[in-house]
């Protein structure tokens, strides 16, 4: 079980209908690659976030597969079109089966 995992997301509170907005996300996670060895020479087991998704009102915006070469605290910045008011839902999937999610509402105005 990875410790100290905390998702952070930045989404504007409002946007004009049809606007393209920038979304920034970061999850604090050690992203242990599975390639390293500890002081005794034993392989440190892989423990990474392997998938990240973002949905807007049930419609998929982005779906990312993460690989072991990705650094600690993976950061994603992407754009999304906002046709209507609603909620962005963000989900991260951990190797250990844990799922972390968070959501942000956006209003039209």
């Amino acid at each position, binding site marked *: 079980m990875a410790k100290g995992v*905390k998702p952070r997301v*930045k989404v504007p509170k409002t946007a004009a209908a049809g606007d393209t907005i920038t979304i*920034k996300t*970061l999850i*604090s996670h050690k992203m242990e690659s599975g390639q390293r060895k500890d002081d005794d020479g034993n392989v440190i087991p892989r423990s990474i976030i392997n998938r990240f998704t973002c949905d807007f009102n049930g419609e998929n915006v982005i779906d990312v597969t993460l690989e072991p070469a990705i650094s600690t*605290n993976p950061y994603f910045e992407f754009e999304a079109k906002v046709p209507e008011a609603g909620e962005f839902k963000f989900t991260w999937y951990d190797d250990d089966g844990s799922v972390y999610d968070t959501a942000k509402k956006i209003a039209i105005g």
Partner: protein
Amino acid sequence: MKKLTSALLASAVFCTPLMADPVEDTLILNEEITMVTRTAAPAHVSDVLDEVISGWHFRGTETRAMQADDFDNPGMIFVEQAEEVWNTADGSEGKSCSSCHEGTDSMKGVRAVYPKWNEAAGEVRTLEMQVNDCRENRMGAEKWKYTGGDMTNMVALISSVSRGMPVDVAITGPAQSMWEQGKELYYTRTGQLELACASCHEDNYGNMIRADHLSQGQINGFPTYRLKNTKLNSVHARFKGCVRDTRAETFKPGSPEFVALELYVASRGNGLSVEGPSIRN
């Protein structure tokens, strides 16, 4: 042929871009706080500097942009970690920082005036010394290592609530002798390379030292997140690194020498905004 070569050489020389000057830019934090990153030098350094300039002006475009938004600033992850520690009880008294100080907002303005003379203890104290005094005597907890992660993160948390306030350390009164000692250290050449702090940061700021852009060595941005080691770095760890680079035996972090030097260097930045946690190379 010789003429052509020298003509080519000449053009190469003239085409070299002038990278020496600090970048003209304004640091606006989170689109809210306009930071003072260059200002008239305080009276006690006005004989050697016209203007004091934050290290922020000496870094690249991307690095500068990262610091302008808390979400993009990786230093803030460590601040968040310290926030948890702030609220977690430790030691034999069963107290946390928040037991006495309540919210972290109560620390507003503290970073700006440290290092500071402590009347009761009769010494100049850095924030780190104050934190450890709290841990030892109020909480009954183990001292933290002076430049350790827990300590540096906590100092960054305390610093973060003062961002935008001008650095204003007192150099007269009881702190003066310590300040004089710090000043002497600043101008004393050390190591096989015989370099004083002033050799780089006063005489040559703005010039390139190999691939790196020399700043004035201001410490208003500490603790600083360094891209080279992806963690927060404390002032004394940086001092140690600098002294080591002159190929000298360094003072210990937390030693009276470095406390004096911190007081002096901080006073050179009086008037600049507190920036910590900042981002540097």
